[in-house]
């Protein structure tokens, strides 16, 4: 399949735009300024409308992009200044200031557009494509302008990398080191304005914020390291930008901005679900594993202590059968939950099950002994430190014992040594 030259240029331009947005967006995200881009994007509308008015008045080519983008940039800058001025009142926090500025500027743009439409001339024609983006309507020279602007942004980011990194991670330290953090912030805001303006035609002013936030957020889910985060954000931005342009070429009636955002959102969702460290699935699995291992410890200890309560000495417990019901009663579990756990432990070869009773296997007895030791040692430590009375020491130990790091556990419970006695009575009814 041969891609027409124009489409190819637009595709590459949008991809480069995505790279710039991902990179600048990463710093904006780390600096907590991501949503300023929302204000900038919306604020650009009156600028575009006024620029179209002026262009129409002087009789220049209304399809010429640079004057419109210049108007958008000026209005976006004015929007940023307005946000800062409102935040400085001390009454209106930045979030409210952003909401006020984006909606009021956008409203002014809407009013201006409606006025433009009643005037003769073609100045307003096609201005609405700036609102939701229409990559299919981009000409090669428009794409080249956007790409050039995006490339310039990238260059600036590379040149100012050290300063941006310092200001993003530890502004106070950077300030002490003699970095003019205020100026770096201004640079970042300037970059945001430029990227938003460059993205107007391809993504549209309402959704351009997504191209800055989503790639950076995706990268944040996948890595902790800044260079890697920048690379991932740039790649996600490029794929989203190019994907949006392709979708626009294929189905011109779908707003390009929506396609770009959905492409980025798809990648973000994948990262949110499957990221090895922070993804929902990984975190769910970790939580499940922790709960299961705590339940295993509790079950084995309850089975062990039930035998101790039935008269087996501290050294010999583990040779008798304990009823699952008594385990459930000791732990405050439902019988069903205790039975399911017993089946799971039998699968793992820790207990043998028969007629509602469990018997610890040698493997299970070792694990039970370890769990009992861990619990009692923590209990005794808490009591010796005067940190708790007997009943709450039991409960506190339940919370602490599973999270003990191996090294600390070894210090608290030097093996081999005699199993300590329980500080409280064992058997049914004790918590």
């Amino acid at each position, binding site marked *: 399949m041969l891609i027409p030259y124009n489409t190819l240029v637009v595709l590459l331009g949008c991809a480069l735009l995505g790279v710039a947005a991902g990179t600048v967006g990463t710093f904006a*995200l780390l600096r*907590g300024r*991501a*949503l300023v*881009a929302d204000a900038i994007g*919306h*604020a650009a509308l*009156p*600028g575009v409308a*006024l620029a179209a008015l002026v262009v129409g008045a002087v009789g220049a080519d209304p399809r010429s992009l640079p004057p419109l983008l210049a108007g958008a940039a000026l*209005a976006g800058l004015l*929007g940023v*200044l*307005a*946000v*800062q*001025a*409102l935040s400085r*009142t001390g*009454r*209106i926090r930045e*979030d*409210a200031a952003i*909401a*006020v*500025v984006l*909606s*009021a500027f*956008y*409203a*002014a743009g*809407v*009013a201006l*557009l*409606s*006025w433009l439409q009643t005037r003769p001339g073609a100045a307003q024609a096609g201005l*609405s494509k700036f*609102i*939701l983006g229409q990559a299919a309507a981009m000409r090669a020279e428009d794409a080249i302008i956007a790409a050039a602007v995006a490339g310039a942004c990238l260059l600036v980011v590379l040149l100012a990398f050290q300063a941006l990194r310092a200001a993003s991670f530890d502004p106070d330290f950077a300030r002490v080191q003699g970095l003019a953090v205020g100026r770096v912030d201004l640079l970042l805001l300037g970059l945001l304005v430029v990227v938003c303006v460059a993205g107007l035609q391809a993504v549209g002013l*309402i*959704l351009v*914020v*997504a191209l800055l*936030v*989503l790639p*950076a*957020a995706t990268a*944040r*889910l996948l890595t902790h390291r800044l260079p890697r985060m920048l690379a991932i954000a740039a790649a996600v931005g490029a794929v989203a930008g190019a994907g949006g342009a392709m979708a626009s070429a294929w*189905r011109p*009636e779908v*707003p390009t*901005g*929506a396609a770009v*955002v*959905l492409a980025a959102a798809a990648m*973000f969702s994948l990262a*949110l679900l499957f990221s090895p460290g*922070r993804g*929902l699935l990984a975190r769910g699995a970790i939580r499940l594993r922790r709960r299961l291992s705590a339940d295993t410890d509790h079950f084995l200890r309850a089975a062990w202590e039930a035998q101790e309560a039935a008269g087996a000495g501290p050294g010999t417990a583990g040779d008798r059968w304990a009823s699952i019901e008594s385990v459930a009663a000791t732990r405050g579990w439902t019988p069903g939950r205790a039975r399911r756990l017993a089946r799971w432990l039998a699968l793992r070869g820790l207990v043998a099950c028969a007629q509602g009773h469990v018997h610890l296997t040698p493997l299970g007895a070792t694990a039970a002994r370890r769990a009992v030791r861990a619990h009692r040692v923590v209990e005794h430590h808490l009591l010796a430190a005067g940190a708790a009375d007997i009943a709450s020491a039991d409960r506190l130990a339940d919370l602490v014992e599973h999270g003990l790091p191996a090294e600390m556990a070894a210090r608290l419970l030097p093996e081999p040594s005699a199993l300590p006695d329980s500080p409280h009575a064992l058997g049914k009814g004790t918590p």
Partner: protein
Amino acid sequence: MTLQDLLMLDLPPLLAALLAGGTCGLLGSFLVLRRESLVGDALAHAVLPGIILGFAVTGVASGLPMLAGAMLAGLAAVGLIAVVQKAARLDPGAAIGAVFTTFFAVGLVLIEVTGARSVDLDLDCVLFGQLETLVWTEGRSLAALVDPAALAALPRQLGLMAGVAVAVGLTVAALWRPLKLICFDPGYAAALGLPSRGLEIGLAMMVAAAAVAAFQAVGSILVVAMLVCPAAALRLMTDDYRTQVLGGAALGAALGGVGYALAGPVPAALGIGVALNAAGVIGTLGGLAVAAAALARRRASVTPRPAEPALPGSAPGSA
């Protein structure tokens, strides 16, 4: 301009602007006080797919299905924002930005896919509102104002707006003190045993309902102006909870009414041939109100020190 024009063409949009402005202005104060202005922004955008789906499933362009769809979408958005914020450890702003843009994009695509576009839910309505298209075909004379049959021909959107306005007003009145507590001291509210989480979700649902009701009048994005601008202006003027909340509602309604009048009827009456988009004028006035409040506050707070020169860009919304 005849009385008939006034009743048929101006009364419904004026009522819509008053109702939408009042409802949004009332709720906006809670958002601003709770530092959740951007949640209002997010909800205003995020209800779009719910509205479109509610419409697509039932094929009716108003009323409860759209309201239900929008509230579901709003609930999903709020929940997702919390999940994203926690899982990705993003700051709230970034999580909001990631979620609401996605919802809005889904809504935009749904408009195309479901064919909602061809009826009266097109993109222009989402982006610019369509206050001017609300007409009362039966409003031929003053007698129609008391004629049930004629009143039944009022635009359906007005019924939805009035219903939401009454429901929101009653809810706010009933939950006056709990809402005050979760605005000013959420920790204390939780210590008192108030269901803070439930109240927060209830607040979000009210905002979603208000956003849907106002959506058809002023469009998705200008709902944000109606929610936040009156509240922000009052925040600059008062420290009193009652003044803040009720004043916000009054200012919102006033902005709605004045904005609509300035956009069309007043210029027409003066013989100026300019008709502006009413929603745009309302939003612009909202921004000007905040700017005026900020300037007035600066002037009032000038101490005997030499006056500072005005900073450039200190007049937001002046574009």
